[in-house]
């Protein structure tokens, strides 16, 4: 008689589990206006017109579009991308019942229900009525191509903080937008960034004036709902001297069989003594267990630490998307500026992630920390790709990089591609990488104490990712921990 030491392998269950586990996969029936399918100059003009943009904005978009036509999709990442037909997608979709600015009452109730289902508090009253002591979070909710609500606007404005959809900002604060748009990620930076310049539909604009500590967390919640629609959001955050802001970003999408494109650009600039903390929980639909469907996530995120003692901290928990191509970076131009990148990337089934960061040290005494935790399961591939560069005049630069990979099962891949380029002798650069699996000893020990297999895996994985998770604001950290467990359900058996 054989003893039943572990639960028998449960591949059949695992298949069922994965579909069950993308809880955010519902789609909603909301009347929408689309731009005509495909991408031409007319599409660009259509989007610009829809947004009542000034002429300079349209000219900027068209310049980007024309340049984009001359570019080729990059192929250096360790990703296997099916050819994308850029003419077979919609570049603009907006809910028909368009809300007036700032008036939540006029948001299509169906959209409010979507956000409610997602657990996103876009109704201020609800937040206010929440648990005593709960922190307030102002939310910008972007539904397909449009921002449908920004909350707590009044309270923020009293502090001098501007929190708007980028479309509004283009109209209301053209000088600020002009000053920084495309300055951190240049228009010609890369294929996807250039595409975004041409067709970006909405996104968030944040301006924190000098000396202001933003009184609450700011957050944008991105949702792709419409079919065959790409989402091209654009975020610009400006932190003036001595200011501070913590910004959270979350994303989900319905389960759909075809791949949907998401090509965002995020630009951050921090002036003297300013600090921006940017946290992302990316949970776009990853596709089914056979690799069908899922979001193609090609994102350019970059921060310019322009001021002395400025600091930008990126924290990301990447569990979703069929393909992730994303390198939130810091250009550390200011003296004694600080860049941080904390990342957990989970891939399961057929997911592919190629993600990491670039720390470009130009300022004297600039410091950076990179902590990357990659978790691969199923038949997925997970790559850390990072660059640490120290310029010749950047004295006394410090960087510490830790890249750890955890493999669950022997059908997945975990890859590490670090580039270190140093031109200054006073730099101190340290890079460490390890690869491990969950040991049989750890599993048995945890199970002997009473945890079932999935709880044990989830606990050990969360321990592996702890250094990163503890960087997240508390509400997000709890979500992220759950998400890690859910993303890996069915991966061990």
């Amino acid at each position, binding site marked *: *008689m*054989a*003893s*039943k*030491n*572990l*639960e028998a392998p449960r591949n059949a269950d695992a298949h069922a589990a994965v579909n069950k586990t993308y809880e955010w996969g519902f789609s909603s029936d909301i009347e929408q206006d689309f731009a005509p399918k495909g991408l031409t100059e007319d599409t660009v003009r259509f989007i610009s017109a829809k947004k009542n943009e000034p002429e300079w904005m349209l000219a900027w978009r068209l310049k980007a579009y024309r340049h984009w036509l001359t570019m080729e999709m990059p192929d250096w990442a360790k990703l296997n991308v099916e050819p994308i037909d850029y003419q077979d997608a919609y570049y603009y979709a907006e809910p028909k019942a368009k809300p007036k600015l700032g008036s939540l009452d006029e948001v299509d109730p169906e959209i409010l229900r979507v956000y409610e289902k997602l657990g996103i508090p876009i109704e201020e009253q609800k937040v206010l009525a929440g648990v005593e002591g709960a922190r307030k979070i102002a939310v910008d909710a972007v539904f397909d191509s449009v921002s449908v609500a920004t909350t707590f606007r009044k309270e923020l404005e009293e502090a001098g903080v501007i929190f708007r959809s980028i479309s509004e900002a283009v109209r209301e604060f053209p000088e600020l937008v002009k000053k920084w748009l495309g300055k951190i990620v240049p228009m010609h930076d890369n294929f996807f960034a250039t595409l975004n310049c041409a067709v970006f539909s909405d996104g968030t604009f944040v301006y924190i004036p000098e000396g202001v500590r933003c009184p609450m967390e700011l957050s944008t919640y991105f949702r792709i709902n419409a079919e065959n629609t790409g989402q091209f959001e654009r975020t610009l955050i400006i932190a003036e001297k001595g200011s501070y802001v913590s910004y959270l970003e979350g994303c989900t999408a319905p389960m759909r069989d075809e791949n949907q494109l998401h090509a965002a650009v995020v630009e951050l600039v921090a002036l003297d003594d300013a600090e921006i903390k940017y946290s992302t929980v990316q949970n776009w639909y990853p596709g089914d267990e056979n690799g069908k469907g899922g979001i193609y996530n090609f994102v350019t995120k970059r921060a310019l630490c322009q001021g002395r003692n400025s600091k930008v901290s990126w924290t990301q928990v990447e569990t979703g998307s069929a393909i992730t191509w994303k390198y939130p970076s810091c250009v550390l131009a200011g003296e004694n500026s600080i860049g941080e990148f904390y990342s957990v990337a989970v891939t399961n089934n057929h997911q592919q992630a190629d993600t990491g960061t670039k720390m470009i040290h130009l300022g004297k005494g600039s410091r950076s920390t990179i902590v990357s935790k990659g978790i691969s399961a199923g038949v997925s591939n997970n790559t850390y790709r990072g660059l640490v560069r120290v310029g010749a005049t950047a004295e006394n630069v410090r960087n510490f990089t830790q890249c750890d990979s955890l493999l669950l099962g022997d059908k997945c891949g975990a890859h590490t591609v670090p580039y270190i380029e140093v031109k200054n002798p006073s730099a101190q650069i340290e890079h460490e990488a390890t690869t491990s699996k969950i*040991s*049989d*000893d*750890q*599993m*048995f*020990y*945890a*199970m*002997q*104490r*009473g*945890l*079932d*297999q999935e*709880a*044990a895996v989830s*606990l*050990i994985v*969360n*321990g*592996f*990712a*702890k*250094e990163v998770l503890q960087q997240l604001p508390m509400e997000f950290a709890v979500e992220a921990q759950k998400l890690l467990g859910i993303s890996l359900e069915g991966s061990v058996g």
Partner: protein
Amino acid sequence: MLKIDNLTNEIDGKAILKGLSLSINAGEIHAIMGPNGAGKSTLAYTLGGRPGYDVTGGTAEMDGANLLEMAPHERAAAGLFLGFQYPVEIPGVSNLQFLRESLNSQRRARAEAPLSGGEFIKLAKEKAALLGMDMEMLKRPVNVGFSGGEKKRAEMVQMGILDPKLAILDETDSGLDIDALKIVGAGINTIMRKPDRAVLLITHYQRLLDYVKPDFVHVLADGRITRTGGAELALELEREGYRELAA
């Protein structure tokens, strides 16, 4: 409480337990002693359900339920605690988080209400104090950076918190200095010496038995219990060595 009958098993095709029988009643403390390679740790792992320790024959029941049909966490929920000879490190997971999740998983499996954060901390403090362990230690990741003695002491804190019916303690005395041995011994008595609890001590030496007095002592040699006696047998073994008695 525990009834093992004619248990045999194989590891990597090699027979280790060769028809081991043992009964432990509630309220009893048993000690198993024996030379290296006799199968002492194998017995502990097999009862715990460690993968790779496949049973080839015989039965093991706990309170009448077939232990061998259960997954490791189900055995834990049934009240079986294994004190590891080499406790495992789990980086990034604090002892408190680990134990709270474990305890509440067990409680849910037994249809008991999970403990709240406050209740759990109170319990942990009490048990940590019992074993002379600083709460700060319990905030650190499971066994990471612990010395050999600290690991063993932490195992006993875990036992105190999880409150099992039956504890199988594998070489819990190894790595302990004399002061720690006294504390651990007292801890075992306080936690486990009760009419509805039982302990199986697996040990090389009799020194732990000075502090935890066994009701029965068994000699395990070549995969079988070869002799059973009272506490005095341990002293005899210490004097004479295993060679004489194992035969």
